[in-house]
């Protein structure tokens, strides 16, 4: 078996003295899409930020392809994983292609110039993310779904084997959410490892190979969506009377929205 791309054990994070994460484990292999789910404020985003090196863990071990996160800096880190935030700020007068080129600059030496291969890398990332058609448009003119694709293209330009997306669909309408989650699934099918933080359990069940449930600062369950997102667990963790169905690529979460008392 190949070495895992990401291996995180007992990760803890404290922010201003408050423990947000008290022991989380995470594994990721090439070609799989793993969804991280859990109620609000349990530490899902903190977990992916910690393993990405955006926030320093207070304890635990994180390894990227066997390399200790604590020893990784700059370009090495950029080559290990790409982090796509929920929504990036949109600077004026920057085109889609320029933004993706900025993503590619992660691989250059300081003051180093873009080579032909780098320019091909930018074009390839735009192609894979499906943004080539509006490459010359300014970021300020894009819809939410288009912008999310551009953010993914910026991440792809890093040519890291892992793409981490923090709630990429939470601000999108249904059509755009289908579009973006479909893109992430395609990327996983083409060999990329994708880590997705998501609220929508039906969406997670539809696109993910595995889901990881975070609760109270810990990873409490992991496995195939239908095995993990059982009615008992939905009741215990989300306090929801609900059950998940999945057939023929369609998923639904049947929820008792109004609780009879």
């Amino acid at each position, binding site marked *: 078996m190949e070495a895992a791309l990401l291996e995180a054990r007992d990760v803890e994070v404290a922010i*201003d003295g408050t423990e947000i994460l008290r022991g989380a484990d995470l594994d990721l292999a090439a070609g799989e899409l793993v969804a991280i789910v859990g109620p609000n404020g349990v530490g899902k985003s903190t977990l992916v930020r910690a393993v*990405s*090196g*955006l926030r320093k863990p207070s304890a635990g071990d994180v390894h990227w392809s066997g390399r200790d996160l604590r020893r990784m*800096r*700059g*370009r*090495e*880190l*950029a080559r290990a*994983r*790409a*982090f*796509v*935030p929920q929504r*990036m*700020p949109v*600077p*004026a*007068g*920057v085109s889609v292609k*320029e*933004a993706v080129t*900025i*993503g590619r*600059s*992660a691989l*250059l030496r*300081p*003051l180093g110039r873009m080579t032909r291969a780098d320019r091909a890398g930018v074009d390839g990332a735009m192609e894979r993310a499906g943004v080539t058609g509006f490459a010359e448009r300014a970021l300020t003119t894009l819809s939410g779904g288009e912008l999310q694709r551009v*953010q993914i293209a*910026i*991440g792809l330009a*890093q040519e890291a084997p892992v793409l981490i997306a923090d709630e990429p669909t939470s601000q999108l309408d249904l059509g755009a959410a289908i579009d973006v989650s479909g893109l992430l699934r395609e990327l996983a099918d083409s060999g990329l490892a994708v880590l997705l933080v998501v609220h929508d359990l039906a969406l997670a069940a539809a696109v993910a190979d595995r889901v990881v449930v975070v609760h109270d600062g810990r990873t409490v369950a992991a496995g195939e969506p239908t095995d993990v997102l059982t009615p008992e667990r939905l009741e215990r963790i989300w306090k929801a009377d609900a059950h998940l169905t999945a057939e023929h690529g369609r998923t639904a979460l049947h929820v008792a929205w109004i609780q009879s008392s």
Partner: protein
Amino acid sequence: MARRTAVIAALVVALLAATGASLALGAVKVPIGEVLDIILGKGGTGPNHQIVEALRLPRTVEALAVGAALGVAGAILQGALANPLASPDVIGVTGGAGFGAILILIAFPASIALVPVAALFFGLLAAALVFGFAWSGRNRGGTGKIVLAGIAMLSLFTAGTTGLLASFPERAPSALFFIAGGLTNAGWEGLRTTWPYFAAGGLLAAFLIRPLDRLALGDDVAASLGSRPQLIRLGAGVSAALLAAAAAAVAGLLGFLGLVVPHVVRMAGGTSSQAFVVPTSALGGAALLAAADTLARTVRAPIELPVGPFMVILGVPVFLWLLRKAV
């Protein structure tokens, strides 16, 4: 892309024109052909030679260096702090440099040679205090924290300056030229002490262009790309402090330039890409200051007017015109 090329071409032409005018014009007019001969070492040894070589050349180089430095300082601070109002004022440099210079001019008028050194020292001290406070406690290195610490430090040093002026009102006129900002005919003296600061600040700025472009896409994207957002902001602050303090030591307080020039080039080029904004801010700042300085010493020659107010008069209409078109 064509638009950006046109802006760069226009700025280069403006820079050359301003440089030529600065060397040729003044109380004595020297034909541009003769100026070229003198610069290239082919001219004679007449009085024009003296004027161009000993007075106008150093003054022009100073104007170009100070203008470029302030343009770059403004551009990288606006980028690093993601704030259109950022200029060397907001990291305390201008306030500190003003205090240092006025302290010498008012309290130790016999040591007037120390003015540039004091401006440099207090300008960098103020910036160091701003960054020291902004990098302590919670949310260290946050944009809001830097700006607030900077404004507080600016107020503190400005109060010190005003206090000095009020305590020695009879000496206040000697400080006016520094406050208004302007270049002098002191030869290479100003640049001799300050060039390492210009060079270090400029070099650091060149290395910051790409990281600042990453930062424009947000701290998270910058971090994803392997940069450290707080370190970029600190680097930008150090670079801007070096450039602005050196500029103040040579030419007094010309804060307006650093605020406005980056906006002008951004609006003219239609982009906020730092790879465009930083170099063009240097070109634009240099051209503007050289032009304004030439105007300031020719309109009422042989009386020299301080360049600061002149630059504002030249720059504000252009700025407002572009602003109206841009928004």
